[in-house]
């Protein structure tokens, strides 16, 4: 996979390998940011909810669209939250979300799926994730949306780091997510 943007670096495994190491450990730094245009489920840009919905072309063969929007909340189990930083293993997260979409299409009669997860520094109220599902009937859309969200929370390599009121930061643990 080539990288079309000189300001970004691709996490694709082959492009990051450096086979000419002089020592056995070498710590190159790189940022996990937007990659090639073909990768669209993980983004460091603000999620444009209208664009997500507009990308679902309703030709009349589905009767329900459910839109889920996850936003950054100002409190958590660790106290008052002032913001959230999301980090992802972008390539693996992309592949994982694609696999979830395939699984969902086998379980329900899905017409369209759009999943976008934002990474980077988010403010309170910012959208962190958008899931749009179009189906023939509403129950499938609600069920599939909840299924996708749960799978992302449980399986996809994305991590959130709370910025707390006292200035500390804390990685959110799985048990902290049970009520979220």
């Amino acid at each position, binding site marked *: 996979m080539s990288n079309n943007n000189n300001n970004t670096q691709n996490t694709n495994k*082959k492009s990051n390998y450096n086979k000419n190491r002089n020592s056995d450990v070498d710590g190159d730094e790189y940022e996990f940011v937007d990659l090639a245009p073909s990768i669209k489920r993980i983004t460091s840009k603000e999620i444009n909810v209208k664009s997500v919905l507009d990308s679902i072309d309703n030709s009349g063969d589905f009767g329900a669209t459910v839109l889920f929007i996850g936003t950054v909340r100002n409190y958590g189990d660790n106290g008052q939250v002032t913001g959230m930083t999301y980090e992802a293993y972008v390539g693996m997260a992309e592949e994982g979300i694609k696999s979830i979409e395939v699984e969902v299409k086998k379980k329900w009669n899905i017409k369209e799926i759009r999943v976008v997860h934002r990474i980077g520094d988010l403010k309170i109220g910012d959208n962190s994730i958008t899931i749009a599902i179009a189906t023939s009937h509403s129950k499938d859309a609600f069920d599939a949306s909840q299924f996708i969200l749960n799978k992302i929370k449980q399986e996809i*390599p994305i991590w959130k780091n709370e910025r707390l009121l006292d200035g500390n930061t804390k990685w959110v643990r799985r048990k902290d997510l049970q009520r979220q």
Partner: protein
Amino acid sequence: MSSQIHITALYFASAKDATGRRKESIKLPEGTTIRELLLKITSIHPRITNILNTMQISVNYKVVVVDTILKEADEVALLPPVSGG
């Protein structure tokens, strides 16, 4: 002397905090398993020892078991419990 392979180790979230880096290349003897790699990583970054048992390990995007044998140019990621959404 046995052949050497080079793998890339990626550290995320609390693993990144414990190692102080996101990525490093590590040279290993051919036939090294994930278990042996993790021992090497803990020798390089002792702070990761306490959280290592909470993590999954992936090789080239696939979660693997510790008996997996590494190959040249593998990308190995240490994945703390996820928390997306």
